[in-house]
């Protein structure tokens, strides 16, 4: 049943449907509405859950870790500085192979202080060993959140669901929430094979010396890679029960044979998609919505990139001194294709700068005009706003 819900409200309800036992969070814009809404669910008796309002994101992640390690489904959410404060714990959760889910309401990272959306925060922890799934809209965010618990619990790899701050979290959209019965059918009760239990007193988080650390890292790497299967399986089973896919590893909009492709993550996909409808171009173009950034779906990407001559990689973060983050990885993957596309790497919409509805024609124009593809550019940069020496 469709209902008009704010993104955060929808996410909170989705989390609630997954029956978490412990939710721990610390307020940060733009994540706050999610946690506020979960708190309301608990307050209203609609969710039986220990809500731990901690004193920092560091503790939020830690509380969730402790709870998940104790055999209880755990959830947290944060943004921006909060994600960075959590960083140490995030590595720890994944390294201990503790299944849990968090929402990253994506926001720029200061300084300068900026509360608006980009994806610098989740990109900063892309190597923390978490699965990262990026959502194009709030329906996807709801579906992905529910799927995330099953993915995490089957793979014992934690999942970060990335939802663009404000753009999604604070936007009212018609959302179809699955029923509790459907979710219960999809998501079995939480079970953690190594749960802390005085009847089976295991020691978790030991010190592993050089003779085994390499293997620990290898197995973690393999686990995240193999999660692609579980991500696809979760989406397939979800669709079977609820009748809707959450977006797989990636999805393609537009003609499959198009030799121009735009690859993007998160809500900008929706903007581009709408722009494509509003401003159709002569050249066939397809949009690749990359949902799974970690694991990086190499096989699936290779498949959709076959035959592409011009590939635009749009991203909402930057690696200063290098350039694109996603772009770099795509570029690296593309070297394994039979035909290397021209790769145009653009950052767009940093710190909440509006991505205009004309984005699609502008991109097409830019790549058509370019003699050489942009190694990396900030697409919507207005250099005149900078003193000459800082441009």
């Amino acid at each position, binding site marked *: 049943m469709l209902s008009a819900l704010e993104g955060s409200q929808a996410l909170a309800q989705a989390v609630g449907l997954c029956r978490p036992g412990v939710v721990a969070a610390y307020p940060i814009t733009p994540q706050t509405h999610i946690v506020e809404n979960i708190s309301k669910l608990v307050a209203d008796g609609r969710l039986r859950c220990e809500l*731990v309002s901690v*004193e920092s994101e560091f503790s939020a992640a830690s509380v969730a870790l402790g709870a998940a390690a104790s055999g209880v489904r755990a959830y947290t959410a944060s943004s921006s500085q909060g994600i960075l404060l959590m960083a140490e714990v995030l590595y720890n959760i994944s390294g201990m192979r503790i299944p849990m889910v968090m929402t990253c309401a994506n926001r720029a990272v200061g300084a300068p202080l900026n509360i608006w959306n980009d994806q610098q925060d989740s990109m900063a922890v892309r190597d923390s060993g978490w699965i990262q799934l990026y959502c194009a809209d709030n329906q996807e965010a709801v579906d992905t959140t529910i799927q995330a618990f099953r993915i995490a619990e089957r793979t014992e790899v934690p999942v970060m669901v990335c939802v663009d701050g404000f753009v999604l979290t604070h936007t009212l959209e018609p959302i179809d929430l699955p029923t509790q019965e459907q979710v219960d059918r999809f998501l079995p009760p939480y079970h953690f094979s190594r749960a802390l239990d*005085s009847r089976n007193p295991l020691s978790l988080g030991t010190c592993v010396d050089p003779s085994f650390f390499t293997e620990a890292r290898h197995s973690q790497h393999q686990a995240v890679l193999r999660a692609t299967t579980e991500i696809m399986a979760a989406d397939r089973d979800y669709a079977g029960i609820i009748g809707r896919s959450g977006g797989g590893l990636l999805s393609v909009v537009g003609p499959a044979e198009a030799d121009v492709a735009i690859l993007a993550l998160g809500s900008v996909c929706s903007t581009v998609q709408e722009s494509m409808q509003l401003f159709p171009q002569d050249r066939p173009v397809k949009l690749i919505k990359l949902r799974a950034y970690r694991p990086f779906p190499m096989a699936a990407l290779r498949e959709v990139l076959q035959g592409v001559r011009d590939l635009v990689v749009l991203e909402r973060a930057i690696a200063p001194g290098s350039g694109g983050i996603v772009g770099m990885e795509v570029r690296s993957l593309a070297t394994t294709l039979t035909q290397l596309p021209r790769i145009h790497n653009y950052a767009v919409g940093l710190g909440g700068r509006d991505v205009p509805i004309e984005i699609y024609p502008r991109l097409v124009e830019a790549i058509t005009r370019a003699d050489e593809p942009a190694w990396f550019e900030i697409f919507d940069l207005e250099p005149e706003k900078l003193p000459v020496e800082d441009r």
Partner: protein
Amino acid sequence: MTTTDDTAVETSVDTTTDIAARKAALRNRLKDKRGSNEAPARAGTAFSIAELREHQPAFRGLEAGHRACQGCGEALGARLVAESAGPDVILTNATGCLEIFTSPWPQSAWRVPWIHSLFENSAAIAAGVEAAMKHLGKSTKVIAQGGDGGTFDIGFQALSGMLERMHNVLYVCYDNEAYMNTGVQRSGSTPHAAATTTSPAGLERMGKRHLKKDLLSIIAAHHIPYAASASVAYPVDLRRKVRRAMEVEGPTFLQVHCPCPLGWGHESSVTVEVARLAVQTGLFPLVEFERGEVAGVMPLRNPKPVTDYLKLQNRFRHLFSNDPRAREEREHLQALADHTIEKFNLRGEEADPLDSEGADTVRRGGLVA
């Protein structure tokens, strides 16, 4: 160049076989062995030490074979805490000596469920475990552990938050007064004038310039039901405090004074003696707070001069040089002890069986009542 084929993998890695087998083996190992007072019933044969180890009249939460230094006060403290608390507990552990020496994979010295995450989040992990227990309706008590670095300094925020939120967690700080795991650097707990590798004594300095943080008062100010200091030199008192804290529903705190032979520079054999003198000089008062008020102290029968304590330890060796500042700092430490004695009204009016001289009295049959 190779990439991994992500289509040809199993849905998830099934570890249940592995775990189930291990659990079964473990159950057999632990069968009837926990906290048993009974000697194994097997007539006519001699028992090996290893067998008797399984039949000790106290619960061993922390097993032998851990890699603490000789005479480690923290190992002793943790052993006593785990013994008094177990077996229905879950322990969390901050990074530090205790964590390192008890859990070099694939071995663990813990016989209770135990989790180490990070340096600064023992209290927060414990809060999460406790929330989970609450959700599951389990009565398992949660104990967070940390050293003084993980408690006074880097983990202080998480600890304060845990206390404020009134989690049903006992936090135990094993206070050995410096960052020992990293090689004896000063912490917020290092006493005034003690030399560490980052507060060395030299021509310009007489060891640590600052004072030992009065953590217990700060903790007590959270208005929690119970906060106390204890010492490895007074195991009966320590055990009582652990049990007391375990009975309380809500956050409780224990600061256990644990000498570190390596870091303090004393013989491994005098660990308990040093701890005892810390109490008997008034430098480490044994105090109990309830809801922020002093609810009890271990009175000092005859406060000893602080030099009795200082002279056993190399970290205070510079205070016995001819430098006039050495004398000054000794007097300073004496004044601090006197101040503490006065502040907590530690001076006993008459001999008391539970004062600093009486509390460790032994009798045939042992300390355990």
